């Protein structure tokens, strides 16, 4: 291969580029990224960065040594299509830029935040995925402001925790009866669900959001747009940037209305795979839909020769889950690329971490550090092997058919770490 294009310039993309050079690839290496920013670290965006304890420079993922990688950066350029090049190799079309031709492709386009379905664009409504998202949200997290967080998953919980520290009035709305019961199980979901209330966050569980309440009625928005269309600079309504003005609150499915100055929607992610439509790539959906991620082997191979995929946009069979899963864990985006590029280059896989291959994530919320490895299934048996659950300081092991399949730790990194290593060694 003469030229390899890495599509995606976040952790998985950068890790792929580094791994390609480590594996001895000396050809032209192009890294395409939709965002204008140099690769940065996302986990702090809901924690220290959002709290103002870190600045943009603290998020940098690249180090000076990366200059030696001799990468051709194409930042701020969004991939629009992947198609075969006559005679072999691929062409990657870019929105508004010249296409890139290459012999091999690493797909690492990640995922984006899911929006509330059907919601109009309102100022004061945020999702949190990118640095720009975090900067916009941070600017609005002022003490005393009323924040409604829609979605009690990890991102929502972390944002609520950070906002509470910053002195906002925080309400968390979660559709499920117990937030985090999905990934952790009912017992531990309930323990974590009790934390926000203890810390002064108002929690409304088991209720959905029906709509966002805009400052402008449809009629007002129409009049404003009509006035603009006819050259009137200032109509009889305030000049708002977005369709419905500013958010005033959240209307719940049961009819309740929550007033809000700021709303954050944390209801999951969607893999960035639309650009691959028509590429011939098979997705992980039941009928091969790419909306469930690009289907890969555990080693990163796709159904197309010379194309591998890695990170949040890829889905593969997990022995921990017993099914095909699109893991969005940070450590997967860090470690899996080395495997994927060795597949692309057809070279032996490099030495992997002692715990590579075990799904792993962490979360910092309300002063607690949670670590989880493996995959929980409803019905798994749970045993507390260390510490005290009531003290929020424990390690729990999940077993399926007697075999450990997952481990959860809060404030017990050493014992947790041993179990994580044991999970990696098993199977």
């Amino acid at each position, binding site marked *: 291969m003469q030229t390899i294009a890495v599509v995606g310039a976040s952790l998985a993309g950068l890790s792929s580029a580094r791994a390609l050079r480590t594996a001895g690839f000396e050809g032209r290496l192009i890294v395409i990224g939709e965002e204008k920013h140099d690769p940065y670290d996302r986990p702090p965006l809901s924690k220290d960065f959002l709290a103002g304890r870190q600045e943009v420079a603290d998020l*940098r993922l690249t180090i000076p040594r990366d200059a030696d990688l001799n990468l051709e950066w194409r930042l701020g350029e969004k991939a629009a299509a992947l198609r075969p090049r006559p005679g072999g190799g691929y062409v990657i079309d870019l929105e508004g830029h010249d296409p890139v031709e290459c012999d091999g492709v690493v797909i690492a386009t990640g995922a984006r935040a899911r929006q509330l379905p059907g919601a109009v664009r309102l100022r004061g409504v945020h999702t949190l995925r990118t640095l720009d998202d975090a900067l916009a949200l941070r600017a609005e997290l002022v003490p005393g402001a009323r924040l409604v967080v829609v979605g009690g998953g990890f991102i929502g919980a972390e944002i609520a925790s950070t906002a509470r520290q910053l002195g906002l009035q925080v309400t968390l709305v979660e559709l499920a009866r117990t937030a985090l019961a999905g990934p952790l199980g009912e017992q531990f979901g309930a323990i974590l669900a009790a934390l926000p209330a203890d810390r002064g966050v108002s929690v409304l569980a088991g209720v959905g959001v029906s709509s966002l309440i805009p400052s402008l009625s449809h009629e007002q928005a129409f009049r404003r747009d009509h006035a603009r269309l006819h050259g009137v600079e200032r109509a009889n309504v305030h000049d708002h940037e977005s369709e419905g003005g500013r958010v005033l609150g959240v209307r719940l499915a049961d009819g309740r209305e929550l007033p809000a100055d700021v709303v954050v929607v944390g209801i999951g992610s969607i893999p960035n795979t639309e650009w691959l439509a028509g590429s011939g790539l098979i997705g992980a959906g039941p009928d091969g839909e790419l909306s469930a991620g690009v289907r890969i082997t555990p080693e990163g191979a796709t159904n197309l020769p010379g194309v591998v995929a890695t990170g949040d946009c890829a889905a593969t069979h997990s022995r921990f889950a017993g099914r095909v899963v699109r893991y969005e864990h940070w*450590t997967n985006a860090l470690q899996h690329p080395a495997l994927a590029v060795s597949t692309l280059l057809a070279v032996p896989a490099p030495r992997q971490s002692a715990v590579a291959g075990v799904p792993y994530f962490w979360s910092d919320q309300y002063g607690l550090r949670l670590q989880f490895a493996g995959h929980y299934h409803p019905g798994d048996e749970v045993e507390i092997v260390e510490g005290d659950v009531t003290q929020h300081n424990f390690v729990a092991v999940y077993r399926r058919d007697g075999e450990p399949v997952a481990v959860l730790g809060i404030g017990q990194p050493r014992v*947790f770490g041993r179990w994580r290593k044991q999970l990696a060694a098993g199977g």
Partner: protein
Amino acid sequence: MLIKVCAVVDLPAGEAIRIDEGPVPIAVFNLAGKFYAIDDTCTHQDASLADGYLEDDGTVECPLHASCFDLRTGRPTGPPAVRAVRTHPVVVRDGTIFVVTDDAATVPGISV
């Protein structure tokens, strides 16, 4: 300043111990019979490297976010850490391990 770590027999190969007697916590590792000491706290975020994963090649992986460091040099060898941890000399006397932690005698954090 010489800090007593533990008896040699109490730190088997592949294991690590954290000592809190100095100005900052220090992690001491037994890598195939040879002892190495580094600052215990990962330079990326607050996590104990003594709790991390020690590889045969002298790499220690942070148990929290998987940053890797070379025990012998303290340099980061895998992201997200970008700054080195300090290394400290280790001496063994009469079957006991000691770490030398004179701040002036240690290598300051190096950027790579």
